């Protein structure tokens, strides 16, 4: 599949010639010409960005990338949205072009973790992890709100940490509530009705009762305490690596 590459030239920097008077950056360029590309100087490099993303889980191997583009070529999401371009983002991160990266900040979380990139990457960059680390970096730095994907991960992990197991109905309800979505959207309702029609009564009772009696791993208390302590430590390390929570100067 051909790779569509986004141009570094921005549409707002293209001036169409019309034969009329044109002054660009104080210089008179009136005359007959087709297209003028306004020059743009990048000087806001974020030299820390690569190290910060590499410090988050999944980002560890970003430095190995040699820009072959195989990841983008294989990518599931790229096939439905050409702007989703792991190779390009890795390039921007490694060169510190934060402003360019931020132009795509709202779609990076959409990686579906299919691992096609990791399968094909000749340098074991594990780009899937880099996508997750980048999405988390954007959230931790306050560039984007928490994506629905992150909220789902959190709801899910919270329940596993608490009880050792999850119960799907409960995760679904919590997720929809926390993201402010109606509990019974049309298609969810249809699913539920079809399930009720086909499911054996015993299982329905089991799933219904799960509202009160949650499945749990017995004797999970000590594991829970150990995990909670570990997760807190990790979060603190990430915040430190990203220089968050620093006392104001």
């Amino acid at each position, binding site marked *: 599949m051909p790779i569509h590459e986004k141009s570094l030239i921005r549409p707002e920097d293209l001036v169409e010639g019309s034969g009329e008077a044109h002054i660009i950056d104080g210089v008179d360029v009136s005359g007959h010409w087709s297209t003028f590309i306004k020059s743009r100087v990048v000087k806001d490099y974020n030299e820390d960005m690569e190290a910060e993303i590499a410090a988050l889980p999944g980002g560890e191997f970003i430095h190995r990338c040699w820009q072959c583009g195989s990841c983008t070529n294989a990518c599931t999401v790229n096939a439905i949205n050409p702007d989703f371009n792991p190779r390009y983002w890795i390039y921007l991160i490694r060169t510190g072009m934060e402003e360019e990266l931020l132009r795509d900040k709202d779609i990076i979380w959409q990686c579906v973790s299919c691992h096609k990139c990791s399968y094909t990457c000749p340098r074991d960059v594990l780009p899937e992890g880099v996508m997750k680390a980048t999405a988390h970096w954007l959230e931790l730095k306050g560039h984007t709100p928490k994506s629905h994907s992150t909220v789902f991960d959190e709801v899910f992990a919270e329940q*596993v940490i608490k009880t050792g197991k999850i119960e799907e109905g409960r995760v679904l309800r919590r997720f929809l509530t926390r993201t402010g979505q109606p509990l019974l959207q049309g298609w969810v309702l249809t699913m539920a009705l079809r399930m009720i029609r086909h499911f054996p009564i015993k299982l329905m009772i089991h799933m219904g009762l799960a509202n009160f009696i949650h499945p749990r791993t017995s004797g999970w208390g000590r594991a829970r305490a150990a995990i909670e302590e570990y997760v807190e430590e990790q979060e603190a390390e990430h915040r430190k690596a990203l220089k968050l929570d620093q006392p104001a100067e």
Partner: protein
Amino acid sequence: MEQKYKKVAYYPGCALEGTGHSYSRSTKELGKALGLELEEVKNWNCCGAMEVKNVDPKLQTYLSSRVMSIAANEMGYDTVMAPCNGCYHNLKKAEYDLENDPASVEVVGKLSEKAGHQTYEAGQVETIHALDWIKDSLGEEGIRARVKNSLKDLKIANYYGCMYTRPRHIFPEKDKGEGSESTSKPHYMDDLLAAAGAENVDFPLKTACCGGAHTLSDSDTSTRLVMNLIRAAEASGAEVIATECPTCHSGLEMHQIRAEKQHGEKSNVKIIYFTQLLGLALGLSPRQVGIHENVSDSMGLLKEKGLA
């Protein structure tokens, strides 16, 4: 030669206790019918699915390691069978990390100690998928010899999804030449269903992604990915998409409905677990393999084909 996998530890995982219940039911029934014994891992926990790794990958490794530790140290097993692609993938990934990454070994050791159970050590168990379980214990010959109700005339697209083959490095036993499973063109399910008499269609999207990780958080993307699969299956002439993962299975069912309700895109292919199809071929009833528990209603088709 002694038969392989005659008795293994069974790790159902959370999905098989909920939406994937018919997969669990048909897996157990299949085991009974084939004389393969399953003992459920005692007091198991969630493997972390696709989510916990995004909070912390080493935590996911710990969760998977606890399951393997119980199977090995408390129950004395050397094989864990996980029918769910997510569980299977995570246990394999944990195995790989515990063998190759000292930092993961350290975290798992610390958490296991604090949690009060024996630490899992790489190599204690082999994790296998339900496909390996049937394929390596009885194989095509074993199935062929036991078919009572051939799946002949049933046109099947075999769908394996992402987690069964990717990334390659966590599946060292695959891609080992003839007889082994392939990560680029998996064929175990094709082989088993062909042995049961089915006609496998040439389905190009065997290992494409169904968007399962974002089935709720980015439903439009998932619906598009699922409809790609369904359209390709129908174009290949398939009447059934055979599945081997509860997340793929319920994703396909869910987004088939969503596409119809939300975008008026109707499709007719039925979604059935491979364990259900094999069970029917071995003469089990649709009820025994939980056809009624699937959201995708395939009774009409199965009756038409003389399988119900």
